[in-house]
């Protein structure tokens, strides 16, 4: 429910290219907030993975 509310509850309005000054800021990239090393720690220390992007390698935590 939280996921649905965050995604669809915000609505969606057409924004022209010249209106996107704020959206161009690098902190507005919707990638993983965790960096490579931090994401690796989470993948090992939590039972859940997924929802990231791109190819994922093995945990290497034999």
């Amino acid at each position, binding site marked *: 429910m939280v996921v649905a509310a965050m995604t669809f509850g915000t*609505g969606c309005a057409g924004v022209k*290219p010249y209106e996107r000054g704020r959206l161009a800021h690098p902190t507005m990239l919707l990638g993983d907030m965790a960096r490579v*090393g*931090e994401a690796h720690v989470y993948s090992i220390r939590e039972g*859940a993975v*997924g929802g990231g992007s791109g190819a994922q390698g093995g945990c290497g935590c034999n």
Partner: protein
Amino acid sequence: MALRSIASVLPLMLLAVSGTVFADDRKKPAETSGTITSKASLESSGYADTDHVLVVSPSIAGSVSDPLAGWSVGGHLLVDVVSAASVDIVSTASSKWLEHREAGSAQGSLKRGDVTAGVSGVFSSEPDYLSLAAGGTLTMDLLEKNVTPFVGFSYGQDRVGRTGLPTEFWRSKQTASGQFGVTFVVDRSTISSLQLEAIQETGYLAKPYRYVPLFAPARAQSILAGASIAEVNATRLNVRPAEQLPDARHRFAITSRLGRRYSSSTLRLDERAYGDTWGLMASTTDFRFTFEIGRRLMLWPHVRFHVQNQVAFWQLAYTAAPGPSGALALPAIRTGDRELSSLYTATGGGGAEFRLVDDLDHPWSLLFDIDGSYTHYLDALYISERGAIFSTLAVEAEF
């Protein structure tokens, strides 16, 4: 004692200089020159926890791109040096061990019109483990870039062995994943995205060094969560078989991300809901608020909360009893992996990025980030809680 050990390694983690992070062209207008942009970063991360695990990970990364021509290539290399004397190691009467792991990735993308195609490859190698994976993504800009759907796929092959075991006897694991997502421009200051991911893991999914204590049915009831090594050893049966897990696991995750930009600050909120065919369900919430102080400094507090239940076959104390033949009948599926048990983790911290050289074309930045986490295991042997510190120091330059 454990906290003292963390305190003793923290300076090392801070000193282990590092490299950087995200592309930073905030003071530049959109690229129109067609010139090639190169970025390089050096980074060092450190992890230490109250279970006597210490990891130091230096890494380098670089990328070259031409925004006008629509292409980019990049990659990173990382080395993990792990020192561990965790309760799982001590409980099997093994000594502290030191190991290293090398990992890396390469990726490239090409944009033609409204479509961007990307490919990536990942490897991870250590003396008893090898992992290779590759994937691709397709992204399309629609409705004047207000809606951007994407699809992705990746496949990985892992080889799992033991130190000294010839590679022909190593086990294999396959991982395939598919992703679909959409990014929406909500208004002039807000972006959100929704992503669905399905992951299929097959093959050998257990850990070859993990052994599971077994108990006589009449004595299993006396074992409580957090029971010490001495209590477990005094109660368990002599047999201690290796971990055995189902040979397939299907994972599903749905992730929503929200970014909202204010005049000199940005709010980020991520939520992931997760479920898999082993019966594990989880929720992970990430919150970050980044704010700028002047032209050179950015600060951000960060909070993360993860909660999950246990897998369907989880047992605090697995039992074994003699069968008709007199031999012990072992449970077919058994695990001691407490990351498959009920737990919650609260993480909090923050970071700072300081622009060392405030040059539009050749910026240099220094970044430091530190988080502390507390995990509570509701139904696991040996430990009921764990504290951890994770930090990163990074330097990035653009040429």
